[in-house]
């Protein structure tokens, strides 16, 4: 790790100021950033911790659904979202291990947009809103490919607002080593339709499986999925699974998610 300066602001405004500095980078739970720095793959001059900002912490019901502060750790979401949005709480409770869940945060995960991360599927399937220090971004506009998002220089996530579906479930199939999602499917049924988001599988990061959405909106049952096909050409191939295997997982896990959503 190279040396760096450290700032820990207590308000969003101060954080925005600190992050405007040259070479500054946001630090939330550090579960992605710190290992990268230890390997000397990242060397920010200033780390601006977002975990001391009260407005960016916690889970509560508010306008538009469930508000989760960007610096809220996964473990807190797993516990406090349970009563409001159990599928989301389940997802948070299945990330990494207890240490990762105690430190890693929703904001860090959504900002990082790792193609195998769990949260992006929930954000996209819920049609959530990513709130930043500058604006509100709809989930459909936010995710822009592998590790790429709509966030601009100096912009950071302050909270994520999730509309609460009638029924939902997240089914994750672990990558055997990292235990991130080799493929994960989040199914959310709202009054006006079903949204299905897939993480881990796509060449281009998290995506909506619109064919399944249409079929499930008409008939919310696992049986309708068996009639669909997933085109492997959009899927990722790596050491742990081919595109064809991932395409299969998308289908199998979607069916299971529908069953789990009840």
């Amino acid at each position, binding site marked *: 790790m190279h040396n760096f300066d450290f700032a820990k602001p207590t308000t969003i405004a101060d954080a925005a100021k600190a992050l405007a500095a040259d070479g500054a980078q946001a630090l939330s739970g550090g579960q992605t950033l710190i290992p990268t720095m230890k390997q000397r793959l990242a060397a920010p001059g200033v780390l601006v911790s977002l975990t001391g900002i009260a407005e960016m912490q916690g889970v509560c019901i508010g306008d538009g659904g469930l508000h989760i502060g960007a610096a809220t750790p996964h473990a807190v979401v797993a516990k406090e979202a349970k009563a409001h949005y159990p599928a989301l709480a389940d997802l948070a409770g299945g990330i990494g291990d207890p240490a990762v869940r105690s430190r890693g945060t929703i904001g860090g995960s959504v900002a990082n947009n790792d193609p195998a991360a769990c949260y992006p599927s929930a954000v996209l399937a819920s049609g959530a809103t990513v709130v930043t220090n500058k604006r509100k971004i709809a989930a459909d506009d936010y995710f822009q490919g592998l590790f790429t998002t709509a966030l601009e220089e100096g912009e950071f996530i302050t909270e994520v607002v999730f509309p609460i579906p009638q029924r939902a479930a997240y089914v994750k199939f672990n990558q*055997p*080593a*990292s235990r991130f999602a080799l493929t994960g499917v989040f199914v959310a049924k709202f009054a006006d339709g079903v949204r299905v988001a897939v993480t881990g599988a796509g060449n281009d990061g998290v995506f909506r499986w619109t064919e399944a959405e249409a079929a499930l909106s008409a008939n919310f049952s696992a049986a309708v999925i068996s009639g669909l096909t997933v085109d492997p050409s959009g899927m990722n191939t790596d050491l742990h*699974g081919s595109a064809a*295997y991932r395409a*299969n*997982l998308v289908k199998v*896990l979607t069916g*299971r998610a529908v069953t789990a959503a009840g």
Partner: protein
Amino acid sequence: MPKDHGIGASTKRREDVRFLTGRGVYTDDMALHGQTAAVFVRSNVAHGRIKSINTAKAAAMPGVLAIFTGEDFKDVGGNPAGWLINSRDGTPMREPKRPVLAHGKVRHVGDAYAAVIAETVAQAKDAAEQLAEDSVIEELPAIVDMKQAVADPSNRVHDEIPDNLCFDWGWIEDNRAAVDAAMKAAPHVVTLNLVNNRLVPNAMEPRASIGEYNPGTGDYKLTTTSQNPHLTRLLVSAFVLGIPENKLTVVAPDVGGGFGSKIYHYGEEALVLAAAKKLGRPVRWTAERSESFLTDAHGRDHVTKIELGCTKDGEILAIRTETLANVGAYLSNFSTATPTFLHGTLMSGPYKVPHVYVNVKTVFTNTAPVDAYRGAGRPEATYSLERVIDKMCRELGLDPFEVRRKNLLTPDQFPYQSPVGLLYDTGNYQATLDKAVQMADVVGFEKRAAESKARGKLRGMGLSTWIEACGIAPSNLVGILGSRVGLYDAATVRVNATGNISVMVGAHSHGQGHETVFAQIVAEKLGIPDSSVEIVHGDTSKIPFGMGSYGSRSLAVCGTAMTKAVDKIIAKGKKIAAHMLEAAEGDISFEDGKFQVAGTDKAKTFGEIAFSAYVPHNYPLETLEPGLEETAFYDPANFTYPAGAYICEVEVDEGTGKVDVVAFHCADDFGNVMNPMIVEGQVHGGVGQGIGQALCEFTAYDETGQLLTGSYMDYPMPRAEDVPFYNVDYSCQTPCTHNPLGVKGCGEAGAIGSPPAVINAVIDALQRGGHTHVTHIDMPVSPSRVWSAING
């Protein structure tokens, strides 16, 4: 009532008090006055010619104290292979020099070609980065695939070795023609091509070394993560740096696991010693996890074709194997023994097979060195054999249990001279098989399979009956087989004046629990509390000698040396008692901690004898020496032969290909058991590693020799959720006939017996599920592989 102390008691591990409360002292925990930090500059190409290394800029960086390159070590010796193997045609193996730092060429990603010593690790890293930038390495085509390595003589890992072959070994070459004939004549021949997947050892504690040099005395000290401190001292002294053995102390303090990877001497150890001498300050190095992945000796990596000739009713007539075994870029210390004498000699397993022939070609590649890893050669043999027998059962429609029974050696056939050179002293393979069948409720399997089916899962059952040779090893035998060292062990039992005892043992404990078990044995033999016995290990300045811990040898070999030293103590005690009690030595008996004149109540306690040995106020000094301390060396008469039967049940999810091991039953024969709790723990750990190999672990290099599975993001380790609650039994005991404790060794059994049981179970599940085209899947049977096999 189970015993609560001494031999056979499940005494809790005394070392766990320090380990579980954070008071263990590992190499990296030591802070030394004036210490400096070493960081290695490692090749990022798999194969390259070192054109130039410009040290000027790096040397001028803050905190930098010294820089070493391969040039600095070109005149010292190489790190040798411990076994010299001859090829089938009698020519000796090719042994390229393994230098302290790469010189001329780099031969695998991670191969260290320079080292920087600085005041701090961060400074050393900065300078190492600079040095890497200032080094010109011309990349050469990498040799990664073994078949290509042999086929393409133009591209060489070592310029002087034309076909990248270390040797082409035949075992037993004289039997080759007879085996070929038997195979030809066999009514049925089963052929199986398989890969024994390459594994990264992943000890919890990464390798670490500290070199010290005292200019006032000329003494060197190496503190290092070793399973085998005396061997390291020997190699550094006699082969690499030439430091006299009496001027070099090697200390292996608490060591956090090794699984084989810490048996060997590595260049980093020599470097920190040489650097400490140059600087007159301690030099320390601790591997980062990425370095462990790249440079710890890996395990397995065999590509094998096995053929089995049999009758139509499953009597095995002949076995023939051809194996390519990867040794990586350099020969690690045991790398030539592992695929040969620890592998070929086990190829008849626990069966009566008249004809067996094993051919192994060991191949150099631009990958990390490969060497012994828990089980070492024996898991490879067992896997090949148990898989091909399973395939035979399927091809001939035979019951795998019955086929095992038909071919297993029977108790009346011991001692048994195997066709591949071993003399099995004792065993009862039917007993362990019967036990396993009972433990696993084999008759209830169909009902469980139906329950699994109702939950949408395919259930399968797999069996493996295995044997291993451990208690390594008789020096006369291994000498004939090419070993450059003897494989005895040693112990000193020192009775202190106040009657408590320090035992200095050559075995090294890096998780096994020697400190507890060895003390139980000494205490039992002397009739004193376990707590009166302290076990000292891992320090060449304290212990007489030793060949370390590996090959399930600690108790069978070092434990025997210790037992013999205790016997000498008792003999000396009798002498002292005879003097004190004014009786003839022959009339003194020793029992329950008391020396007694036979037929009288005249007696002295062990404590009284000890005290008198050190306060010899009225000793007849011409015939009785003061003091009570004895040393014994023990060289085993034979290997020991643990054996057992393992039954695994799996459930397969057809939709995802995921395999769950839902039950695992082990019926082992380890001979006598000293501490049942520790034996069970060893079996749990071994089976866990075997399940890891079978289900998830693999090591992938791309065609340029980059390690793709170089971190836990991509190298799948088994976790608690991947293993079932093990069902372990060790009640079938045929004590070893040639060591006094009757012990055989239990450390590797689980890793040897379990992989084929898992794979056999997976194939069984798929076959039962109607996927009859799937007759084999190579390990690891990861979800994607199983799914592809089903759908492929």
